[in-house]
């Protein structure tokens, strides 16, 4: 007994040390008000929480709640086919899963939410992931793995009822449209009047075409080789962009307005959806995956080397809802603005898509599902750090729309002084010059300010040199993988629409029938393109209405996923552990419904869509369009809320039926088959 205790002693001491480190991080975050702290404390609090949650809570989930069993063969082992069902090494699958779930979301959300100060975002990212997001991803991954990799919609249909299944499908399509619109808006705002940035992004198209041709015809299947060539050309374009921005003729060609850029993205999305995948989609997908993993690693190392000091306040006065970046109080809007990184419903699609078909052993779902989401939260923390190290004056000058700041640096400095922050006139011009941009005033959407934060951290490693190059590297990194989401998402939306349309008229459902491809692609592009265009011409900046809608839609999908999880837990007769998914569900439903209600009905015209519509005077230009858009946004938010309520009600009915013994607790798991991988473990 004593010997056993002695053997455990080093481990126990180690965990006490980790806990102490985390507690120290939280203590510094809690006690410092007004003074600058080192980003190291944010990292300490976050990383210590992650490893403790992974070691203890995820282990509890794996052993007690899901009772993962390595003797039970996974779908990859039973159905192995060298196509989608491939048993994959857990670390390889971790990288694969992470690069599928992490995109621009965890970077942009925390940047926008920094108007509340860096503390609310930090705490929500850490608490949300540990108790919510990672639990959701892990749960859906395990449930899908036990069902031969079934999708979320199929599970909702089979385990709750067909109404919930249809609701899930509609929710997925709706979130896709809003997601694509808001991400495209972020790119438009980042590239607007930026010849350097636009030149790099435009040159990715010929680079992708070259890679596509190489991989198909010159050296079939040599993806790594083609990606290396593509990456080298991309870096050349990054450097050449500076020359483009300085040459008067070239820079005029690559200086586009917001509306021009949004049309270009719309046309691009359409082409990417109808052209063969090997030509554009596949090479861009590989290029952005390499860039994403590489940049995340480099940024993590740079933050640890530089350990920047915070300049933003921990909590700003805008928690009261008067924030100029977007309207709304810290509750519920911090929890809607930061979706990806804390809890993201979209992940339920990946966790019930390719990943469950690749798991080699049941127990590895813990690392992939729970651990993968922890890593995304860490990316979110890096965005918080990039935001926190900006001067508050600079942060607001970049992220507040021109309608509030006014057109010139002097009006901007005046507006910012009224909020109690300092911005020297001339400071923004100097910054823009250092970053190689014409102006950085009102560059809303989060991407440009993230790029400034990243540039100052990354250039800090090399003693501050090459700011403009780092800035455009960061813009390239964000824009490239946002555009990858735009083209892949348009294609996915097209397939879903074809499937839905196939119920009405059979030929439409044939995914390779050209007229159906063109019509459904055009409809999807028109859907997100409409919101994108309205966002670009919106006098309030577009982000103010679109980002909350995106957050609500994403959290709605998470609520659907948690409903499915809770239902299955109850049917597995694990009801005493149902709180695992029920607690995040309650929190999410409260935040999402409150936010949705306020976005529709709030009396403040900056917040409520309907009250904003009432402030539009008929003599204003485009008055009819503004009113129509407000009502459309309100209808959208209301229908999102209706879907959440519907799914929760359908699930609650099912829980009651099972718990009151009116219905037998039947789960639709695939049968147990002995695994060959468990031997020797």
């Amino acid at each position, binding site marked *: 007994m004593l010997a056993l205790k002695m053997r455990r002693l080093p481990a126990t001491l180690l965990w006490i040390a980790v806990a102490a480190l985390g507690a120290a991080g939280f203590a510094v975050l809690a006690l410092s008000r007004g003074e600058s702290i080192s980003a190291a404390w944010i990292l300490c609090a976050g990383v210590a929480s992650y490893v403790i949650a992974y070691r203890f809570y995820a282990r509890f989930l794996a052993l007690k709640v899901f009772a993962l069993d390595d003797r039970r063969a996974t779908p990859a082992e039973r159905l192995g086919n060298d196509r989608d069902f491939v048993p994959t*090494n857990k670390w390889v699958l971790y990288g694969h899963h992470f690069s599928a779930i992490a995109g621009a*979301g965890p970077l942009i959300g925390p940047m926008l939410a920094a108007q509340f100060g860096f503390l609310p975002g930090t705490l929500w990212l850490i608490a949300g992931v540990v108790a919510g997001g990672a639990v959701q991803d892990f749960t859906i991954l395990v449930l899908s793995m036990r069902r031969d990799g079934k999708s979320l919609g199929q599970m909702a249909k089979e385990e709750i009822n067909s109404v919930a299944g249809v609701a899930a499908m509609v929710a997925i399509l709706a979130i896709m449209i809003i997601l694509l619109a808001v991400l495209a808006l972020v790119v438009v705002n980042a590239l607007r009047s930026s010849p350097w940035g636009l030149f790099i992004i435009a040159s990715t198209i010929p680079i992708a075409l070259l890679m596509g041709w190489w991989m198909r015809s010159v050296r079939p299947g040599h993806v790594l080789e083609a990606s290396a060539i593509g990456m080298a050309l991309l870096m050349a374009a990054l450097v050449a962009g500076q020359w483009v921005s300085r040459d008067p003729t070239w820079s005029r060609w690559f200086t586009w307005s917001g509306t021009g850029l949004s049309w270009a993205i719309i046309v691009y999305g359409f082409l990417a959806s109808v052209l063969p995948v090997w030509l554009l989609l596949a090479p861009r997908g590989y290029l952005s995956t390499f860039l994403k993993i590489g940049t995340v690693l480099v940024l993590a190392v740079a933050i640890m080397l530089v350990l920047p000091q915070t300049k933003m306040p921990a909590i700003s006065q805008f928690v009261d809802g008067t924030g100029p970046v977007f309207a709304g109080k810290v509750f519920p809007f911090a929890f809607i603005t930061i979706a990806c990184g804390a809890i993201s419903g979209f992940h339920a699609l990946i966790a019930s898509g390719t990943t469950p078909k690749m798991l080699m052993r049941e127990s590895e779902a813990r690392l992939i599902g729970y651990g993968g989401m922890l890593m995304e939260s860490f990316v979110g923390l890096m965005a918080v750090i990039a935001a926190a190290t900006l001067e508050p004056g600079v942060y607001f000058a970049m992220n507040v729309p021109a309608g509030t700041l006014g057109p010139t640096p002097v009006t901007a400095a005046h507006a910012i002084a009224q909020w109690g922050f300092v911005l020297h006139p001339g400071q923004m011009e100097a910054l823009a010059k250092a970053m190689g941009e014409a102006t950085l005033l009102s560059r809303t959407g989060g991407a440009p300010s993230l790029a400034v934060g990243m540039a100052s951290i990354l250039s800090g490693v090399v003693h501050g040199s090459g700011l403009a190059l780092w800035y455009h590297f960061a813009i390239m990194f964000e824009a490239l993988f946002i555009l990858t989401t735009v083209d892949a998402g348009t294609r996915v939306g097209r397939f879903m629409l074809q499937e839905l349309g196939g119920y009405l008229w059979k030929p439409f459902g044939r995914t390779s029938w050209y007229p159906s491809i063109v019509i459904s692609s055009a409809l999807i592009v028109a859907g997100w393109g409409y919101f994108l265009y309205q966002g670009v011409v919106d006098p309030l900046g577009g982000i103010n209405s679109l980002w909350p809608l995106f957050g609500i839609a994403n959290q709605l999908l998470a609520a659907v996923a948690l409903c499915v999880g809770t239902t299955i837990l109850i049917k597995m007769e694990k009801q005493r552990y149902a709180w695992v998914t029920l607690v995040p569900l309650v929190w999410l439903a409260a935040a999402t419904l409150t936010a949705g209600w306020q976005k529709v009905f709030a009396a403040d015209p900056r917040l409520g869509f309907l009250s904003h519509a009432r402030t539009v005077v008929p003599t204003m230009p485009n008055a009819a369009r503004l009113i129509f858009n407000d009502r459309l946004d309100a209808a959208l938010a209301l229908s999102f809320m209706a879907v959440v309520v519907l799914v929760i009600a359908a699930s609650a009915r099912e829980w009651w039926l099972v718990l009151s013994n009116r219905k037998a607790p039947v789960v639709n798991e695939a049968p147990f088959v002995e695994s060959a991988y468990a031997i020797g473990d």
Partner: protein
Amino acid sequence: MRSAIRLLRGAARVVRQIVGAPDYERYLEHQAQHHPGCSPLTPREYYAEFVTRRFGGAGPTRCC
């Protein structure tokens, strides 16, 4: 020298799996092991089939 090349090949295999790139050699191994009677696809055919499945399928392949 030979072990260095083997290490590099192993690393390339891991990277391919992480980014979801096709691995023709692994495909040949799978065919030889499980479908010894069939004649395998050429590299070009295999790649065409692979990208259509990976990027052309209905399921979402990446998140926001």
